[in-house]
């Protein structure tokens, strides 16, 4: 039976080589390997995998096309549900979504759905694309605030339905976290820009350098003739620790560290003028994707030792499994059940280390995860000249604060009707991290799509 085949490995750059460069780590399947992997799929009548995908990609159908060598058709099937497959194939946490549900995973290894999705998307990009033709113009205008995956997806769906869409983006480049957060070695920026150019081809106008809440407001957009507004401003405000020493030189938020490196290309300093500094020893606080990205970036920028410092144990690490493994292979050291209580500085105000505490896991908290509890008297010092804080983000209040009548949760996320993504203001919708708090690319896309469908209905009645 086909399923006796092992799950096909995806070629990757050698760990020693790649930890010194910013080129993509995973190299993608060659066609033969993709076909072999696709042939492992049992083509289940009632495919569990599809239920694991937040946007319901028709997995068995596209996998079957790959098995048959019809790669463009495979890409088309994926794109029916997921407009950014080259991105999702790379960054979805498949092990907790589609692949987690795959029937083959019960006894053996699941079909490598993410890798196949990436393969089909890359193939399509390289060999003639299936262009989406927008419907005839409806004469309706929609403003989309934020150009992360939520905003991009919403814009694409709306444009497809013939509405005139303008995206307002605060930074000088569109793409959100895909551009400024996730590093080149995990998600090449050329791929993101290609997807964004696809939107431009569909007639979506992208205005960069527009900080909504400052240069304009949601209300003003409605006043000047936009029939609806979608807010997809993400969760870009970094949490700090509130411990002594966190404002010392050399203490970065992960956002700053990654933005300098990715968006401002500090890894190519001084050809690009924005500097970044890493010491020989770098401590990254946190255990999610953001922490892994910061740690691996630090290695590539020349750090000798990079430590991930995380309060809970390995099983609770929220990062994608593949990235944890990649980080370990590249030489990132994990200090689990450990967290700093103070950051230490020298006389010039530069970081020189941290006093850490060891933790043990106690009772489960509201989220069901066991609470880390510090062990009394377990203080010890970790030397570090750079500390990167990657303990989470919450929504930036620039838009929400300046929008009268917009209902928010206590943590600053926007309250929406989960079925329609409508906010408390008629004609204003929201989705992505600004609604859920920091989550995933595919969830943000799903929300953008759902909102677009409701906006479409709303505009029809207007």
């Amino acid at each position, binding site marked *: 039976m086909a399923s006796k085949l092992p799950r096909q490995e995806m070629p990757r750059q050698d760990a020693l080589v790649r930890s010194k460069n910013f080129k993509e780590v995973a190299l993608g399947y060659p066609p033969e390997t993709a076909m072999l992997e696709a042939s492992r799929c049992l083509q289940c009548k009632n495919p569990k995998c599809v239920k694991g995908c937040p946007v319901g990609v028709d997995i068995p159908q596209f996998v079957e096309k790959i098995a048959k060598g019809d790669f463009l058709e495979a890409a088309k099937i994926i794109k029916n549900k997921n407009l950014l497959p080259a991105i999702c194939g790379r960054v979805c946490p498949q092990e907790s979504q589609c692949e987690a549900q795959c029937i083959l995973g019960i006894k053996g290894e699941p079909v490598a759905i993410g890798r196949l999705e990436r393969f089909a998307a890359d193939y399509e990009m390289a060999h003639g694309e299936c262009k989406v033709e927008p419907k005839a113009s409806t004469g309706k205008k929609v403003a989309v605030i934020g150009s992360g995956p939520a905003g991009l997806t919403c814009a694409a769906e709306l444009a497809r339905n013939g509405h005139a869409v303008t995206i307002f983006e605060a930074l*000088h480049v569109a793409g959100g976290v895909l551009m400024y957060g996730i590093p080149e070695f995990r998600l090449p920026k050329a791929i993101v820009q290609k997807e964004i150019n696809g939107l431009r081809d569909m007639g979506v106008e992208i205005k960069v350098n527009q900080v909504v809440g400052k240069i304009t407001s949601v209300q003003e957009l409605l006043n000047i003739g936009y029939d609806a507004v979608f807010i997809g401003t993400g969760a870009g405000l970094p949490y700090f620790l509130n411990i002594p020493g966190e404002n010392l030189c050399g203490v970065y938020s992960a956002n700053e560290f990654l933005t300098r490196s990715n968006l401002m290309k500090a890894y190519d300093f001084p050809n690009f003028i924005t500097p970044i500094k890493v010491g020989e020893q770098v401590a990254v606080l946190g255990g999610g994707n953001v922490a892994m990205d910061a740690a691996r970036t630090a290695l590539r920028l020349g750090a000798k030792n990079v430590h991930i410092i995380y309060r809970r144990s390995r099983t609770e690490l929220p990062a994608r499994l593949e990235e944890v493994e990649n980080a370990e292979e590249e030489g990132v050291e994990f200090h689990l059940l450990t967290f700093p209580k103070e950051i230490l500085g020298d006389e010039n105000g530069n970081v020189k280390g941290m006093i850490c505490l060891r933790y043990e896991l106690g009772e489960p908290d509201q989220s069901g995860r066991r609470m880390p509890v510090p062990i009394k008297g377990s203080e010890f010092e970790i030397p570090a000249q750079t500390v990167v804080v990657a303990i989470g983000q919450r929504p930036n209040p620039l838009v929400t604060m300046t929008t009268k009548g917009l209902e928010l949760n206590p943590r600053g996320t926007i309250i929406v009707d989960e079925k329609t993504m409508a906010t408390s203001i008629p004609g204003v919708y929201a989705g992505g991290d600004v609604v859920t708090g920091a989550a995933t690319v595919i969830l943000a896309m799903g929300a953008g799509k759902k909102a677009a469908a409701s906006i479409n209905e709303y505009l029809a009645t207007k």
Partner: protein
Amino acid sequence: MYTVVKKRVLAKAIVLLEIEAPDVAKKAQAGQFVIVRQFDNSERIPLTIMDYDRQKGTVTIVLQAVGYSSTLLTKLEEGDSLLDFVGPLGQPTEIKNYGTVLSVGGGVGVAPIHPIARALKEAGNYVISILAAKNKDLIILEKEMRAVSDEIVITTDDGSYGLKGFATHGVQAVLDRGLNIDAIWAIGPMIMMKSVADFTRPLGIKTFVSMNPIMVDGTGMCGACRVQVGEETKFACVHGPEFDGHLVDFDLAMKRSAYYRKEEAMVMEKYKCQCQKEGI
């Protein structure tokens, strides 16, 4: 495109640029700033708004060449343009009728003080402006400041113009007249703002300073611009740039500003070589 419609050299290495940016001009207020990027490989550079003309759709900035990026910006000519021009960012100055106020500008800090002094005067305050610089040649925007102030005091470190001494001497001179000062705005080099704040703290005069830490995005996303204000960590780009000068930890702020000194020197060096090669 953000085109330079007017350029004026105000002093050695200090230029004024009036830039076409109608949307920003529409919203700009005293105390706010913009972030500019000149080329594709440039840094994002924060600059305070010195003036705006809503009708003409222009925003005026004044900048001093201190390093690579600012030097390149001073070389812009009329007709040239900037790649990015984002704003207005930060909180506007809280303008109301305080009574008698001092607006103190040190060096290039006179530029950001200008719209604040004007707005304060329009709000009915009696505005005394103090312009401080190293020497006479570095006193900028005197005419513009006279136009928006009730009185002007000038101080120079070397005594080549006005009173001899620092900005604090100017403040002292005003206080010596027995005037009751209700609030002070001090903008300039960090060390100058610190000394004004230190000077007014024991006198209990409310003192606002405009912090200029290193920034990246200017929207609250990165935290590079954090300043310690009393017990709190604030982001200068969204909570500021103006803060209560009596609460700001200037020593930390100055250390943070110096963090990339080595890298800045590296870029300058590279720039010099480039200039020599191109015979500029």
